[in-house]
């Protein structure tokens, strides 16, 4: 090796080392189900960012459902919140908001960038901390009734407009071995988030919840107890089987797609489970059948409801940036660059085409959408009023006994009055702690 070659190689090694040391590493905790359709496409979105930004290295963890929340709680407990974190506007991410563990995105992203989003998602009143801790990717409707219209028409049944009509279908459906309504109630949050919040919104209303939080009315009052009684009625009427409490969140979509139930109640995010996985080309519900055999409707009219048509909705989830990153640092700039990329028109179009959610960006459209996606948009358009998702409105210490109580009503081990008492007791404790 001559001198020139030696120095050239030495320079190359030193340059590479310097370049590597200048790389900014970002830790990311993302929420994604590795078994969901489109997982590989989402990974390629991240891969593209790393290729386009060689000065940034992403160390990413992918989790979903309970493991995600538990890992995040562990990170918070250890004081090591990842640099960029997927989070909720309240609910299970409350601690990030309350303890201001993530930065305010408004000054970091800038007004011009944020003007591309619908104003509703920028309303900081919807976020627990009262600031833009995360940029909501969507408005999330937590109650959607997925209807198998083919199954109904085969039995000469019509899509129900009222609960009475839904109740009347029970014998006809059960006679054919079909479950009327399917819900994955094994996870205790599902009933509260995906149905009971809408029931409360219809029968009680958001104002009443606000007054309860102010200590002016009590959950033991007859209005709220009646809402709990309606859940009990659904079980007693056989509209909802008690064995739904044994059905896990993962297995429900496949059961619905297999025609085991006429109706499936879950959030709008669940449509993604039925779409074609671009990698395997397999869909739980074939796109042609999505078009002809299925429909999304609002929950039918409930007897005695005060707010007809209301449906529970909340700001969607999004990415936040850890408050522990020093202001103005290279890491902060890298995190902002990553967040801006994730919300870019290009990425949001890909996400929309995968059917993961209906994006909050105003300038995103696509012709390559499976029928469920425009159907979900149509469902949004058909709902005139929204109401609280209770786990977004109540503190975790209050909605946790509610979640458990709704399961206990399903099991028949507690009455609506007893559940209301437990929730009120939890609220009283919370109110007392906040008065201190």
């Amino acid at each position, binding site marked *: 090796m001559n001198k020139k070659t030696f120095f050239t190689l030495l320079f190359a090694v030193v340059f590479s080392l310097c370049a590597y040391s200048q790389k900014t590493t970002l830790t990311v905790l993302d929420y994604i189900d590795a078994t969901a359709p489109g997982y590989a496409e989402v990974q390629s979105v991240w891969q593209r960012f790393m290729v386009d930004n060689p000065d940034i290295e992403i160390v990413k963890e992918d989790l979903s459902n309970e493991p995600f929340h*538990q890992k995040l709680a562990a990170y918070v407990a250890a004081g090591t919140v990842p640099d960029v974190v997927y989070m909720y506007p309240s609910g299970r991410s409350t601690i990030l908001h309350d303890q201001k563990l993530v930065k305010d995105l408004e000054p970091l992203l800038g007004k011009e960038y944020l003007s591309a989003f619908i104003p509703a998602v920028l309303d900081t009143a919807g976020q627990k901390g009262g600031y833009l801790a995360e940029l909501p990717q969507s408005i999330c409707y937590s109650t959607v009734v997925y209807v198998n219209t083919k199954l109904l028409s085969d039995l000469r049944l019509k899509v129900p407009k009222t609960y009475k009509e839904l109740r009347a279908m029970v*014998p006809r459906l059960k006679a054919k071995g079909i479950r009327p309504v399917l819900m994955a109630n094994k996870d205790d949050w599902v009933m509260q988030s995906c149905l009971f919040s809408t029931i409360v919104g219809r029968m009680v209303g958001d104002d009443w919840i606000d007054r309860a939080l102010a200590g002016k009315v009590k959950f033991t009052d007859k209005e709220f107890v009646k809402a709990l009684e309606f859940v009990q009625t659904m079980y007693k009427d056989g509209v909802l089987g008690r064995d739904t409490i044994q059905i896990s969140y993962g297995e429900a979509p496949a059961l619905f797609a297999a025609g085991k139930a006429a109706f499936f109640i879950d959030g709008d995010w669940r449509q993604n489970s039925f779409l074609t996985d671009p990698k395997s080309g397999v869909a739980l519900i074939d796109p042609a059948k999505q078009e002809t055999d299925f429909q999304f409707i609002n929950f039918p009219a409930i007897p005695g409801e005060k707010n007809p048509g209301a449906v529970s909705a909340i700001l969607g989830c999004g990415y936040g940036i850890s408050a522990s990153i020093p202001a103005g640092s290279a890491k902060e700039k890298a995190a902002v660059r990553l967040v801006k990329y994730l919300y870019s028109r290009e990425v949001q179009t890909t996400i929309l085409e995968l059917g993961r959610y209906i994006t909050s960006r105003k300038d995103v459209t696509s012709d390559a959408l499976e029928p469920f996606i425009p159907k979900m948009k149509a469902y949004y358009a058909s709902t005139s009023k929204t109401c609280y998702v209770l786990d977004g409105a109540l503190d975790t210490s209050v909605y946790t006994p509610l979640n458990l109580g709704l399961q*206990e009503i399903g099991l028949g081990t507690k009455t609506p009055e007893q559940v209301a008492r437990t929730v009120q007791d939890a609220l009283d404790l919370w109110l007392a702690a906040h008065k201190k």
Partner: protein
Amino acid sequence: MIRRNRKGAEGRRAYRSMVLPPFLIYIFVTAFPIALAVILSLSNYNGGKMFGGEPWKIVGFEQYGKLFADPYFWNALRNNIYIVLISVFGQLPLGFLLAYLIYRKIVKFGGFWQGILYVPAIISVIVIGIMWSIIFSPYGPIADAVNRVYSSAYSAKVSALLRSPGGEGVTDELVDGIIDISGSTVGDIFSDPRADLKDFLQSYEPEDLPMLKEDLVNLFAHKWNADFLSKPGVAMIPILFVTLWCWTGVYLIIFHANMQKIDTQIIDAARIDGATEMQVMGRIVLPSLSGTLLNAAILCISGSLSGFALILAMTGGGPARVTQVLSIYMYDTAFMGAANYPLANAIAMMIVLFSLVLILITFGVEKAFGGKE
């Protein structure tokens, strides 16, 4: 003298240099977390940074008071006691009996049975938990088998009714007959059972009789459901069964290995003197293994109290916490919903205390009744 002192000093230095590293590791890895858990259980620490975050302080036994007032704690403790009982009085005797049968060659192919019974212990408990949760699910094989039995029994009754005189048209007798064989199920489906059922039956044409039978079976035959899960105690039965199935093989191996150490001449002599197999087991083998039994009981108790993955995978402690045990209760308190770290640490302390009490009882029992190996 000087030489001896120097030797002593060198020995002490060597001793310290060898003991210090593992001692420090023990302090930081074991003792410090335990001490921190005790401190946290007495504090009002609310998450976030422990040092430099929101200030927190020692508030005394507040969390322990909350714990004792929480019915879910007592429920979890009761479920743990069930698991301890099935482990100590189920796994150990069964493991011992099976080991004895193999040891004394009372059953053929001992090695085969030993292998088969040990297999569950080498499979991941998460896999076992998921597998059994599928087996017990509303769409699982047990539900399917039980529902087939229910359906065929009901189908026979319906067929007899529809064949009997007067069963051709929808008569009041037919309606009464169906209500009679269906029990309360008709009332669960129809608000006015007699009138609604009559309307329902009349909606079928005479040529639809096979379809009507099938539909009536779907509607009114008894179904396997989750009702048993609502009854505290009964809800734990599937978990207790799986616990027994999963770990008995481990104790079989332990007991069988220790039985090999017993002098066979003693057993042979006893047999020549006319001792029965039961007497050999009760008077020779069992006392010889009392120390092993004690160790196995301690293993059982500690395993039962720290058992987490199997139940988490099977039921997650649900529904509505009826199958929750202390370890899941602690985990839920720390990581789910309203995270309460002091309370979670108080639960951890209670687990330690409970296991200490049980182990002391086991020592007492061994001292009182145990033999010498």
